[in-house]
């Protein structure tokens, strides 16, 4: 029986604020899972801490709500032990780029075949609106006592520099486009990163839905002028096609430059994709030929309560 969108929803009460951008992301994720027809018990959503951390409870697949900043560590461990699973990790920008920034960079270097989605809203919502890593220097959202004293992290740029092999940005109020990006990200062979711009209606009074929609610009120019645009509507070409250093460097630099665009024009879509870099799973398979057919989660370790591992060769070599 084909799975429907409703099958991916739990009946857990969703306590996000009315108008929260997170709703669009969870909807897009459920739609993407339904569209790909991924069996519910063959997918695990790992989540971090904060409003976005609750996401895993709203999706009717395996769900692991982890620790602040550590979601990628749990997710990679799960995926490497059971590579048959579809793994999606989600978390806020404070979670992934503040407390978890070290794991973000290290995950890029590994390139495990899974997806990481950051709910990017510039504030720590659940602790009442402190500045988070993507808030710009000098900006003052409403619950900050004084303007932000830190420079912002560039999530796309950091992902590109860290080795993520699929880097994209979505917008939580363009659910269909976001769904398409999630499908691409999950289908990508390697670690995919999605930075999702997600207005926090309660604590971020600067990057609001209206602001992204360009309502302020529209008043000046008298016509509607969304800040958000799609890279695929331009001549931007994100995919690395040949394992050629100059092409890779060109695509990386192009993504980095594009990631700096902000203000009146904010690009969404795929910034960079390179499937020519081996995944961590393939790197393991190079050392352990049957890793993918016989990963840790599938290995039989005992029979009738006794170990089936034969270490006699090792023990004999130690024998005097």
């Amino acid at each position, binding site marked *: 029986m084909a799975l429907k969108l409703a099958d991916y929803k739990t009946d857990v009460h969703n306590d996000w604020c009315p108008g929260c951008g997170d709703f669009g992301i969870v909807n897009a994720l459920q739609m993407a899972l339904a569209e790909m027809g991924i069996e519910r018990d063959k997918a695990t959503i790992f989540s971090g*801490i904060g409003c976005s951390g609750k996401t895993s409870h709203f999706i009717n697949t395996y769900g692991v709500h982890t*620790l602040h900043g550590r979601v990628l560590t749990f997710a990679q461990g799960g995926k*490497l032990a059971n590579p048959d699973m579809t793994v999606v990790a989600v978390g806020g920008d404070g979670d992934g780029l503040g407390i978890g920034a070290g794991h973000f960079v290290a995950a890029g270097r590994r390139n495990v075949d899974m997806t990481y989605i950051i709910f990017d809203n510039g504030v720590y919502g659940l602790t009442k609106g402190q500045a988070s890593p993507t808030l710009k220097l000098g900006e003052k959202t409403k619950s900050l006592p004084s303007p932000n004293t830190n420079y912002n992290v560039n999530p796309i740029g950091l992902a590109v520099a860290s080795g993520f092999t699929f880097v994209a940005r979505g917008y939580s109020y363009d659910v269909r486009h976001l769904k398409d990006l999630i499908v691409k990200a999950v289908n990508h062979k390697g670690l995919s990163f999605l930075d999702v711009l997600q207005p926090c209606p309660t604590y971020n009074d600067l990057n609001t839905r209206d602001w992204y929609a360009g309502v302020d610009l529209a008043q000046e120019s008298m016509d509607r002028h969304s800040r958000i645009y799609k890279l695929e509507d331009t001549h931007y070409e994100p995919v690395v096609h040949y394992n050629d250093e100059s092409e890779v460097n060109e695509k990386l630099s192009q993504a980095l430059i594009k990631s700096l665009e902000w203000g009146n024009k904010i690009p969404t879509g795929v910034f960079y994709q390179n499937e020519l870099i081996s995944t961590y799973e393939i790197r393991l398979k190079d050392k352990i030929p049957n890793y993918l057919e016989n990963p840790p989660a599938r*290995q039989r370790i005992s029979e009738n309560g*006794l170990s089936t*591992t034969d270490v006699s060769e090792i023990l004999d070599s130690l024998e005097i």
Partner: protein
Amino acid sequence: MDSVDFTWLIGGPQGSGVESGANIFSKVCAEMGYQIFGKREFYSNIKGEHSYFTVRVSDENIHSNVNDVTLMVSFDAETIFRHFDEVSSNGGILYDSELEGVDTGKVHTLDTPFKDRLHKLLESKNKPFTISGALELAKEKGVKLYPVSFKNLLESLSEDVDNPKLRGLVRMYNVIGVSLSLGLIQMPSDSLLHSIDTIFSKKPQIAEINKQVANYSYNYASAKFEHFKHSLMGIVKQPDTILVQGHFGTSIGKMVSGCRFQSYYPITPASDESVYLESNELLQIQNDRPGSTIVVQTEDEISAMGMMIGAALTGTRSSTSTSGPGFALMTEALGWAGINEVPVVITLYQRSGPSTGLPTRHGQDDLLFTVFAGHGDFPKIVYASGDIEESFYDTGRCFNYADVYQIPVIHMMDKFLSSSVVTCKKFDPSLISIDRGKLLDKVDGKYKRFAFTDDGISPRSRLGMDNGIFWNTGDESDEYGHISEDPQNRIKMMDKRMSKLDLALDKIPLDEQAVSFGIHEHTIISWGSAKGPIIDAISMLKKEGIDIGFVQIKLLHPFPTRYVKSLLKDTKTLIDIESNHSGQLGKLFKQNISRDIDYYILKYTGRGMTSTEIYDSLKKIVENKAEKREILSHGA
């Protein structure tokens, strides 16, 4: 015939082959039938600082080092300065005679506090601050001196075999030292050559040069020196004996126990285990395709902990290995594993803290930290091994505890164990049973991961299993694993989880909880690696007609109060022995058993205890001459 009890010491700058020299010596002695207890001491340094290895050799079972060195061999000045005083009056020092004129000022790695103590000693005996001065002092005590010019020895060998490359080949000094020693104690030379062949089996050319040098040096010592008082000519080999390094027990134990995922961040003295697991990542499985251990080096210990938990959620037996500083970083996620009832095993190779402390030295000062690790109330098991052989079987137990009680288990080891090289009975994998508890292979109908059950343990699904969907959260949760802040649910969930501690105490066999080595008027309580020197000290006293009891506590949390109390009910004097400052086991004991410790024997120099110093303190206690806190300090 007198029993053999011989201690050999080799020292030199880090990176000069002290360890491989000691490995050859240990292997030769073991092959000749002797029991070995070897221990490595080294600085937190890659090259240049002083490291040394003591190998105790006996024809009886031994479990520790002793204070006295029988034969010391040195190719550098620092070893002589630091250790000449440890050589017993009927022992010997074999050394490079080129060093005789070196004074303490020339040895830049001698630190000031040590140099001050050494100068004071030499001054008090009217000796110059030179190698000759130190050696004279040893000689006056009765120590035999065996000077050999290592340089001349290599030169004459290179002329003999017409190989100029051998001249000045300083990196051969370790092999020269070992071979001279073996010649001096009349150990048959074929075992020396055989050991070199085994150790360099992958590099036949290097083996050849080493054998040439070894043979020449061996013959040189046999011919030049009159027989040393001590000789080791070989005895009947014990069957099924293996020669193992400290981490072999837990690493081979993990393979046998079915651990298939290990994440770790490099830290002394724990990483050897992970590196060994990765070096042996392909596993032979009976009647099945090959298995494997996935070993992942992570960006930090927080990640190691997170990855291990993620892997464990798939039903894979998973673990990490770390030391105190790393474990400190793991404690937040430890609580996550506790509240989510995830079976994981953390192998904790303690070293001396606090902070970076003495990073390459021994300590047992993480006991209380481990027992109380993590914020909030959650159940965990803390289990400690007393020696390498035990640690193999205990690894199997720890994985079973983790699976059966769905609980994080911390398996405590330490640096004393990790840098020991010992002979022991060959590990028997058939004695490791595998009990996965309530781990499911399939799910029918509606599934609740944290279903309330009579024994507090819920059937466990695994990520990716058909129909087994569940949720986890670090928040308090309902039976499905969804967040719940309901006060009545909170009581039930807390009670469910915490009840596992009582269950574990009920179900874990008593002889796994604590081991009694006899109960007497004076009885020792201890844990971990202090076991070896305690056992040896007790048998030394027994030979003098003094009986001392000993209870080794292995299960440290939940504390086996009832069993330990019953064991000790007739004991008058309780002695707590451990390698830390505050007597941490004593504190835990008092907290649980409400009984005072009468004497403490403590060591916190970062060096392991010797049986000699425990013997001395125990004797003082029996004779009523001891301090309440006996503080041990032997060892450079």
